């Protein structure tokens, strides 16, 4: 007589999916949060944005062929929305709690923070994440031809601000 295996009835693939998702989560979490924090200037807001994106991804897990690019787009979209909606909130937290306050004053950081979102995102993705222009375009869901000018304008603005 052979052994009896107990197999979950409701979601036979559930455990496997969760394991895959967990591995993906562990692999992506730090990088996504840091990238989002560089864009948002706030660790807590970045954690919220990234985890909202993870929740959305988890609901579609298994249906998405390339979860990495999907998560990138999702996080960046949330950063863009969060930047529009919660500017006041972030400023208040920044003033009150020092949540995102850097320990030392950094003029480059200040200049970067003032750039328009697309330029700021292009800079972070290029110089922090090391993405190519095509990868940046895919992440920002824009034409590849837009990325180069964004980076050039951002660098020109920063150079002007620094001189």
């Amino acid at each position, binding site marked *: 007589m052979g052994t009896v295996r107990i197999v979950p009835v409701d979601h036979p693939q559930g455990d496997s999916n*969760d394991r895959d*998702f*967990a591995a993906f*989560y*562990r692999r992506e*979490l*730090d990088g*996504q*949060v*840091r*990238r989002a*924090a*560089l864009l948002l200037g706030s*660790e*807590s807001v*970045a*954690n*919220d944005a*990234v*985890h*909202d994106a*993870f*929740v959305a991804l*988890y*609901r579609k897990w298994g249906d998405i062929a390339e979860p990495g690019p999907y998560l990138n787009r999702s996080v960046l979209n949330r950063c863009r929305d969060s930047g529009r*909606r919660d500017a006041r*909130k972030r400023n*208040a*937290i920044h003033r*009150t*709690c020092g949540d995102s306050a*850097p*320990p*030392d*004053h*950094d*003029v*480059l*950081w200040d200049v*970067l923070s003032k750039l328009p979102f697309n330029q700021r995102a292009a*800079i*972070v993705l290029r*110089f*922090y994440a090391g993405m190519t222009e095509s990868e940046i375009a895919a992440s920002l869901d824009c034409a590849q031809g837009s990325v180069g000018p964004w980076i050039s304008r951002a*660098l020109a603005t*920063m*150079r002007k601000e*620094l*001189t």
Partner: protein
Amino acid sequence: MDLAGARHDAKGTDVNDLEDQLTEMLHGRAEQFTSTDRLSEILESPIGTNTRSAPHDSADLALASGRETLNRHRLVGPLLGVAACLAIVVVGLAYIVGRDTDTGVSQTPLDTITLDPTVAGPGDWITVLGEGGKYRWEGYLDRVDGDEVERLWALYPTSSTALEPEPPVNLLEQPDLGLRTAFVAEPLNNFRLPGSLTPGTYRFCRGSVAAGAELCAPLVVQSP
């Protein structure tokens, strides 16, 4: 990096130096940010919930309490936008309709007009058969004496149920009468003849006094 240092560096360096500074600054800055592991919340939470962090200090608590208010306020903009678009559409339609009526043209132009009755007395109602619609149009009354035509009255249509129809205007008293148009929501094809109209041969014309006649029909006015 302090302000003076950054400025000094940027002045005396080229693009690559700025890019190097950016790369160094971003990586240094990123190291200061840490992630919070909420995997168990994601896996265990029911669909529809999020994993947002709880308010962690007084400022966040105060701001979190105002979040719903902010959410409601966020609806105001889109709703105002939709209302503005609807208003623009309505005003545009009214403008188009008004422009048409300015020229005395209804939406259903006719080849001829027929009056009922064709013989009437002062103060009587006349109806322009086949006309009507939601768009107001004007008419006027000319006295015809042989080849001579004298424009005497501007008439304004009204519904037969109107308690106080707009009175006709004596053009001899107001020769510079301009266009008068309006948008109304009921069929209008009834005119009331002036009570002081003297007997004779007239013609009723459809159209505005200023723009001229489009179509006319004979009308005989008899003594009451």
